[in-house]
């Protein structure tokens, strides 16, 4: 099968999966045993006002009609109007998502560098103290609750030492940089506002470390395992036997091949980052999509929950698709 056919097949599959996800999201939102209109207007609203509002929002229509409208809207990236912010949900998502994306990107950069380094060192010095240390470090990373590490770091680095800020993306008195991507680090650098850049960097550091820790752990574990696998291969022995330096064998021959499983795990890790972002954003009052969905859920804001969740699922699928493509490019056998 050639590459184009592979790509088309994956895209169709993704569309099917996303349609299913939309069904699940719709069913969940409409089974919530509470009345969003009641929550919106308060308990004392007169009955005719409630009815009017219900009709205006389309909640008086049969479920199947509501579902049709939801799907046809979703295809056009129109998720209706948020009951809480009174803005189109897609506008809200576009406003909140860059914050999450920025956080996830910094976290993933940390985890890739740190994770691969730790994994390689671990594999080379197998069963030495540095390997034991990095394994304990890794297993702690996947064991500690994200929200708890966040709180402890805030306690230490903000309340006690006052080295780093504890919440938000910028200080209260700093203006956001002119909006291009919505990611403050990019935007402030583009605008040449370096003091804003460093402030944004200081703000993102703690949440990104918290979010990146468990990802670092996963990357390190996979890299270690696959590196050990590769180091056992015959061609490595051949390379050593023909007199190549240990460094060349390790970094040029072994590392390259052992990174293939690492690439695939990064897709999964990205998913877990989106998931961890929900908790991290809550702890650090980070105005991202995770927090938007959580507040939406707690205040019965159907459209924002449905739209936000579907959007995250879409990004998640997209990340996996990109990983599959990279994988197919790296390893032609996978195109089957």
């Amino acid at each position: 099968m050639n590459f184009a056919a592979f790509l088309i097949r994956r895209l169709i599959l993704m569309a099917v999966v996303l349609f299913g996800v939309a069904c699940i999201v719709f069913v969940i939102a409409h089974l919530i045993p509470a009345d969003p209109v009641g929550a919106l207007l308060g308990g004392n609203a007169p009955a005719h006002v409630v009815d009017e509002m219900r009709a205006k929002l389309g909640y008086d229509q049969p479920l199947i009609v509501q579902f049709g409208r939801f799907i046809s809207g979703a295809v056009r990236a129109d998720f209706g109007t948020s009951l809480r912010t009174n803005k189109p949900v897609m506008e809200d998502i576009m406003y909140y998502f860059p914050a999450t994306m920025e956080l996830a990107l910094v976290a993933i950069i940390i985890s890739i560098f740190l994770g691969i380094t730790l994994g390689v060192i671990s594999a080379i010095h197998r069963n030495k103290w540095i390997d034991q240390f990095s394994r304990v470090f890794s297993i702690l990373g996947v064991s500690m609750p994200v929200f708890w590490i966040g709180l402890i770091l805030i306690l230490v680095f903000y309340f006690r030492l006052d080295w780093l800020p504890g919440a938000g993306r910028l200080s209260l008195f700093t203006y956001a940089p002119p909006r291009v991507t919505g990611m403050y680090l990019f935007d402030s650098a583009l605008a040449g506002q370096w003091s804003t850049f460093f402030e944004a960097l200081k703000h993102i550091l703690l949440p990104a470390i918290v979010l990146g820790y468990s990802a670092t752990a996963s990357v390190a574990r996979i890299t270690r395992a696959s590196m050990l696998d590769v180091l056992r291969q015959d061609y490595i022995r051949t390379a050593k036997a023909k007199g190549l330096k240990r460094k060349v064998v390790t970094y040029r021959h072994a590392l390259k091949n052992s990174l293939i499983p690492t690439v695939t795990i990064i897709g999964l890790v990205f998913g877990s980052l989106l998931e961890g972002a929900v908790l991290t954003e809550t702890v650090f009052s980070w105005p991202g999509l995770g927090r938007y969905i959580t507040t939406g859920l707690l205040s019965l804001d159907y459209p924002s929950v449905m739209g936000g969740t579907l959007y995250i699922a879409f990004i998640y699928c997209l990340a996996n698709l990109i990983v599959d493509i990279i994988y197919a490019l790296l390893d032609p056998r996978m195109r089957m």
Partner: protein
Amino acid sequence: MKTATATKKSTPFMDDLRHTIFLWRKSKLTMIGSVIIAIFLLVAAFAPLIAPYSPTDQDLSVRLRGPSWQHLFGTDQFGRDIFSRVIYGSRIALWIIFLVSVISGSIGMFIGVVSGYFGKIVDDILMRITDMFLAFPSLILAMAFAAMLGPDLTNTIIAISIVSWTTYARLARAEAMKVKSQPYIEAVRATGGGNLRIMFLHVMPMCISPVFVQLTLRMGTILLTAAGLGFLGLGVQPPTPEWGAMVSAGRSFLIDQWWISTFPGIFIALVVLGFNLLGDGVRDMLDPRLRR
């Protein structure tokens, strides 16, 4: 190892068991994990004997006290003893882990076996459904389910079970596909065994061991998800001493009363660590490539 023990009259099973115990003792981390989990189980079992106070009784005269000999982990804003709450919390944690494992393991195994055994269109449909559930970050899906069902203990368990069966379904499916073409299945069919009989009496038992290993590996994750839901206010509700909700309750007192959030969090981390160490060990012990 094997040759030394095989000299006496010993069955292959005993040999295998001895070798497993040998491997278990060789891995310090696995032993540490086992010890942590053993202590966790004991604490949960004997919580009323260990906890000095009731987990829910309020005593406003001692509110927000720091750790001391009277209150080992301090007290919260209602004067409840945090140590006692943490101890009783282990029961909630254990209950969640146990039930979610049983429910999601059963759902996964059922769907996987049906899918793998029948193949074709049934397999296609069930696996696409599995893909849909895999397309969500599981915490977000669990949050939605928990909100839909209403936040409490039972619904936390249901919500986490609904989102975590997928891995087991895939494992069971792979195993069922391997098993269904074996000669002994043909023999059962030749003697008149129906599909149901073959699936549940002859195929499913073969899927138990890979699913079980995966279950032990995932027990830590289950606890983390439950604690995350509790922390967000979508899980077990106060005054039930659930660890995640306890961490959340201490947030507003973090500056001066750090102990309220800190201790429950340490216990979540410890138990998850125990399960992860044990799970890794079990996987390594059962992996034929690493057994030698």
